[in-house]
């Protein structure tokens, strides 16, 4: 019974894998057609919640017209550089875009107008929940079925150039720190107070 279950389960898994291999939504099947730039220079350190990033994106001028006819929306995202993915499986890069965890922070999503030839740009204040890490910026172009069809990024294919760092907020506050310490001291002191009271009760009852 258990072996039959295992066989059925493995067949299911194989079918799913086969489906994935031939299905859509793979990074390797996307064309790099967008030119994306971001304001941070290489190695610059930005502060979350305070500093801004200005991103610009547009179709690569060298490509023939009509390449972008299917593009409906562009989503620009903040993505982890390989050094920030090391030993962190929750940021892993996968070819299957539905399982890919490289780009977890959305900067902006804008509709794409193929007829408008001007370069799009957006100024983004880095949100306070962005963690400390090394990043680059990538833009995905989506068609009307909300499937990725093309992309562009600020770094090279190996993700080594033009990377920048973001320093997260610590989340700590002076008031929190003071509360923690006060309660901790209270906890320990109350123990000694109890001991003292017990000792006094013991002496009185004698």
């Amino acid at each position, binding site marked *: 019974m258990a072996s039959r279950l*295992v066989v059925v*389960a493995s067949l299911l898994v194989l079918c799913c894998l086969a489906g994935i291999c031939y299905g859509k939504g793979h990074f390797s099947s996307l064309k790099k057609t967008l030119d994306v730039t971001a304001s941070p220079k290489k190695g610059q350190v930005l502060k979350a919640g305070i500093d801004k990033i200005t991103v610009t994106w547009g179709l690569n001028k060298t490509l023939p017209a009509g390449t972008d006819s299917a593009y409906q929306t562009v989503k620009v995202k903040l993505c982890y550089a390989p050094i920030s993915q090391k030993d*962190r499986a929750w940021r892993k890069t996968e070819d299957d875009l539905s399982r890919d965890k490289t780009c977890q922070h959305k900067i902006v999503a804008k509709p794409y107008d193929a007829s408008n030839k001007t370069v799009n740009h957006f100024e983004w204040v880095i949100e306070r929940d962005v*963690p400390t890490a090394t990043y680059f910026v990538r833009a995905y172009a989506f068609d009307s079925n909300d499937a990725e069809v093309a992309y562009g990024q600020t770094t090279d294919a190996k993700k080594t150039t033009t990377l920048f760092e973001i320093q997260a907020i610590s989340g*700590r506050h002076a008031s*929190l720190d003071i509360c923690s310490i006060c309660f901790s001291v209270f906890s320990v002191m109350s123990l000694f107070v109890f001991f003292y009271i017990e000792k006094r009760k*013991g002496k009185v009852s004698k």
Partner: protein
Amino acid sequence: MEVEVPAVAEGSNETQKWSVAVDSENKATEFRLMSIAKPHMRAFHLSWISFFSCFVSSFAAPPLLPIIRDNLNLTATDIGNAGVASVSGAVFARVAMGTACDLVGPRLASASLILLTAPAVYCTSLINSATSYLLVRFFTGFSLATFVSTQFWMSSMFSAPVVGRANGFSGGWGNLGGGATQLIMPLVFSLVRDIGAAQFTAWRIAFFVPAFFQMLTAFSILIFGQDTPDGNFQRLKKSGQKPKDEFSKVLFHGVTNYRGWILALTYGYCFGVELTIDNIIAEYFYDRFNLKLHTAGIIAASFGLANLFSRPGGGFISDAVSKRFGMRGRLWALWLCQTFAGVLCIILGLVGSLSVSVVVMIIFSVFVQAACGMTFGIVPFVSRRSLGVISGMTGGGGNVGAVVTQLIFFKGSKFSKERGITLMGVMIIICTLPICLIYFPQWGGMFFGPSSKKVTEEDYYLGEWNSKEQEKGSHHASLKFADNSVSERGRKHNTSTRPNDEPTPTYV
């Protein structure tokens, strides 16, 4: 030199009206779950709630890890190390707690530990690096030693026929905290975040909840609890009813009892396995079946929540089996239950479908937690003088099992998680075999009956006191216990005229 005092409780002025039936040591012979009457049932509720709060604090970080790991820039190695640290502190703390209970009583020992570890939970709000994360988890984990004081307290308040279920309920409902925290902490976190705090601040504020709760339980123990049915250790020692015992002797008799070591090993492969699963199961379901972290967390919680009935169930079964078959029945029940848990663990690692996996996990949780309950149906009988040390050794052994198992099978990428789980199941089966070696001369073991030399319970328990100590009268508590433990002979041998399970107290 204390004068030997007769059985009259000199310190307690009011006539003792017990709300439950008691034996000659004033230990309760019945277990009334819904009562909070002092001292027996009140002690039960105080102990399980405080132990529950320690579990909530010790495992408060795992459900919030997706936020914490980004705030502190943790790697998978940092997280794994902190997970090992969280259960390793309690290894020695549990043994120390056992000795402390023998010497100063469970009330002071547990309240002290809880109040001294509460700062570690409060200070979790201050951390800002992988090292500080590891340190707070390490020190918070010390509070898991309250398990030992809980079991010691129950063994002091409840008599042989019901001690299994008292230990099972208090241990099980305490362990529940490990499951409850997977639901509580994310809830508190989202509440605080929705009020307006940034994510990286909200989780810090959330930690005040388990810390404060932990502190309150310690106060309750100090105000409402008492060590034994007759009163607190300190007062009993002063009035001479509880002779002061020597630390070195207590430790010696505990450490030289081989049964304590065997139970420490086997407990490492039921409770230790439970702790390991608490630390890895959410990630396992998340990675293998591509679930949302939220869903994986709920499945993880259900493993811990089974403790509500499975561990007490183990205690119940141990008591029920002992009525008919005595201690031999308890040993067989434990071996069968834990071995079957090992088999289920092997299957869990091999199963590839989500729904079958969840079902197997739940059945596995029931058996592994029942085995924990059954272990503490046996521990109270291993030693009377060094009950605390034996409880501490067994409890500590549980944590050693968790540390060893996580280091061998779940650190780094040597084994996939599913292979690690299967191999853990094999190890459970192997490490449960030593139960066959446990032998009580007065009751027997798994394969042998009681000794032909007609060793009695008195001989066994008084063997822990030398003649000088017996002259002083220090052994009277052990004598009473020996009398009351005759029920462990089982039905067949209990045809003597010795009064056992007497409902009315023979109180002089």
